[in-house]
């Protein structure tokens, strides 16, 4: 099977963001059929003083090697994908994500994450979000596996 070499990841133009959170609402609609955003959104917009910052999965895929049941795979388009039918809810991926982008809400045991679907990009009224193509080799991170600190 030929493996993907590129993946689309979200980038954020902070200067364009107004903090309306339409992106989060669009995201929670995708994952939970809810317009609540916030805890139910895979993308989070956080306010630091007067500036906004985006917090979301960057498809580095460290979690892929953590899944004991093979629920996490890199799909043909390069996106790191959690199959919640296969997932057994162990939270190993949540616990080991170095940037906290694999998310868990109280409504179900299986986590969820950004799938680069572009809903947030389309929902953003100021074009502060953009999906750009990256080489997987350039962004890939493998879980810590060396002996010793």
């Amino acid at each position: 099977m030929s493996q993907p070499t590129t993946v689309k990841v979200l980038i954020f133009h902070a200067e364009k963001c107004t903090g309306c959170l339409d992106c989060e609402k669009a995201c929670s609609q995708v994952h939970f059929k809810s317009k609540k955003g916030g805890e139910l959104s895979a993308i989070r917009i956080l306010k630091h003083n007067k500036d906004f910052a985006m917090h979301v999965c960057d498809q580095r895929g460290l979690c892929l090697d953590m899944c004991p049941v093979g629920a996490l795979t890199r799909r043909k388009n390069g996106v790191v994908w959690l199959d919640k039918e296969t997932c057994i809810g162990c939270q190993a991926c949540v616990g080991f994500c170095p940037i906290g982008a694999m998310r868990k809400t109280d409504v179900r045991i299986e986590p969820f994450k950004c799938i680069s679907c572009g809903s947030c990009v389309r929902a953003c009224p100021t074009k502060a979000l953009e999906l750009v193509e990256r080489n997987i080799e350039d962004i890939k991170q493998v879980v810590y596996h060396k002996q010793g600190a």
Partner: protein
Amino acid sequence: MMEGQIPVEEYSTGNTPHQWDVQRLKAAHKKLASYSYTKGSVERGYANRTLYVNVGTKEISEKPVSDQMKKLFTGGRGFGLKLIWESIQPTTRWDSEENELLITTGPLCGTTQYAGSGKSLCLSVSPSTNIICDCNVGGFFGPYLKFAGFDALEIQGKASEDVIVVIDGEKGTVTIETAPLEETDTHLLSEQLTEMYATEHTDKARQKVSVVSSGTAAEHSFWGCLNFSFYDIRRKVPRIKQAGRGGLGTVLRDKKIKALVVKVERFDGVSNHPADPVTLAKVGTKLHREIRDLDRYQCNMRTVGTGHLVEIMDAYDLLPTENYRFGSFPKASKIFSPHFYELFTKIIPDGCWHGCTMACAKTVDGYTVMTGPYKGEKVTVDGPEYETIGACANMSIWDPLWVLEFNFYCDTYGIDTISAGTATAFYMEMYEYGILNKERCNGLELCFGNADAALELLHRMAQGDHAEFIKVAGKGVRRVKDWIIKNQWGDPQLVNDAGMESKGLEFSEYVTKESLAMQGGYGLTLKGPQHDEAWLIFMDMVNNAIPTFEMKAEALHYFPMWRTWFGLNGLCKLPWNDIEPANNAETAEPSKVPEHVENYVAYQNAMTGWSVTKEDLILQSERCYNWQRAMNVWLGRGQRKDDWIPFRAMGPVTEMEYVSRKERYDTQLVDKLGLSKGEVETMTTKEKLTRLYAYRRNQYEKLADAVYYRRGWTPNGIPTPQKMKQLGFTEIKMLQMLQEKIDNDEQQGLNTWGGVYEKGEHPPTVKKRYWEQWK
């Protein structure tokens, strides 16, 4: 596999592939009994029923789990103790028709969010000790058993031909089937049965099957272990974990059971239906993060498993070498963990149950077997773990490849690496002294370091070789001691002092000579000398944190109770203190890892909906611990004489050992025994040994006095009816049995302290029958 992110289906071990004609194997099965049950759901950690299977009478039935049973016995090993108590007699021995083999789960077993939550607890009357032996083992069997509908599996009787028991959680059936054509050795049998019972020919379907098996050598030895499988979707092999101690695999094969198979329909992260899944996930995720951030600075479990201990033990003179004569060795660096790190397959989620991110279950894939019937085959070797490496150090085997060879054959033949290694090390020492020789060993040259001979012993055991030594060697150190002494081949005291067994079970792999508390941790135990009750060497020897008998006794109360708790719940002990919070050293009691104790309180409450405190956890354990000790009494043991340990565990047996650590022992003769330096200088080594021997033997008896008192037992180590009542037990049969034993001890003068107390010293109390005042 260093680069990571290899798709699951593309990873290859490089093992020799096997093609099984599963249809032909299955066609030869004859169904001897079949039972249908109503599938149910697990509620708050309990399936609320247990499964009884008699492979002799072919009865299969269900037993309900009452609230009272949960209150008194919690689950897991506790349930096992209750069920076996109701089914056997005080005269039951390992090979009696009515002896049982129990596999139990526990309310927290099967949780995927908290590391180390997939343990099965196994119990039986052991061939080595003739008392209850309990083992805590990983693999998928326990969790699947519960999700298939049962908190415990209770097997009784003996089949007349080789059978398997199949618990099909998909169909809701339990069957006993003959299995004449399957292999017996685990690495082949578990593959065959996994393939046979998987619903589809996919790795995900294979992962929903778990097999318990043993092997051919278990049929001819008291060291038979149970191998619990867990199918690895990356390696595409059923991997295994062992219920190693005490010969439970020997019991399985004596019942003519080739394997137990369980299959689960489906399960998810909340199949235990916890009362509070949100809290449970939060506590579990917190621990995952701790492991992520700190394991690399602490134990390196994720990279080398328990093998990281080898270099630490060698540095502190605790690594057993040449049958525990020494605690470190010049060649030891050859088997330090970096050598195994090179061999281990990396970047695979190596938990023996889902969600264990401590992931200590390391393997070497594509290992080429060097000897025996599988020579030339490329296989996956599960391990080695510290105990197996330590067992090899004990035999003076310093080549990582021979460690793997020993590991592989012990596993597939169904043999406990600890007992096999410790016993063979003893035979090697006897060989060195000429007490054993090539002729007496039926042609085996059992010199220290002769790995070939150690493997040959295993092969001949597996073949059922009837030569006298091979037969008695497989029964372990205690039987070989008796055999040597009967033949008048050696000084009985040397033989008894050097062979590392207590209660008939071989010691696990730590040198305890300089830690009195750890000697108690091995001797004052339920099943025998295994470090799972207490590991106090650093606390006692290195940090000197428990200098008095009272303090040691408190530690030998708290830690065995604390560690028992894991077995009541279906948990692994490692995530408790083999990873510690960053600020643990600053807490009031670092050795207890207070934050993790709080985790477990929150965990059990979140699962069951109870509102227990940390003191309640100890109480849960104390009930089961005392019940098991009382059962040992009932079976004719469980008293002071059974808590005897050989002198090799207490100090130097031979002049060579003394001389090798002369400065240490000479200093102790002055500091501890009050001799003058001048006296010590004029004494012969033999005289010094005699003095040290008497002193240390008495220290151990004094320790036993303090511990028995702390635990609420008589001076002969019998749990008192008063203590049992305090714990909530009212069963007349049990209370009467204990009272009769205590009355009998009184007549025989056994209700007196064992230590000899000098002026200014005193036993725990001078009151006679002190327990009678307890309300």
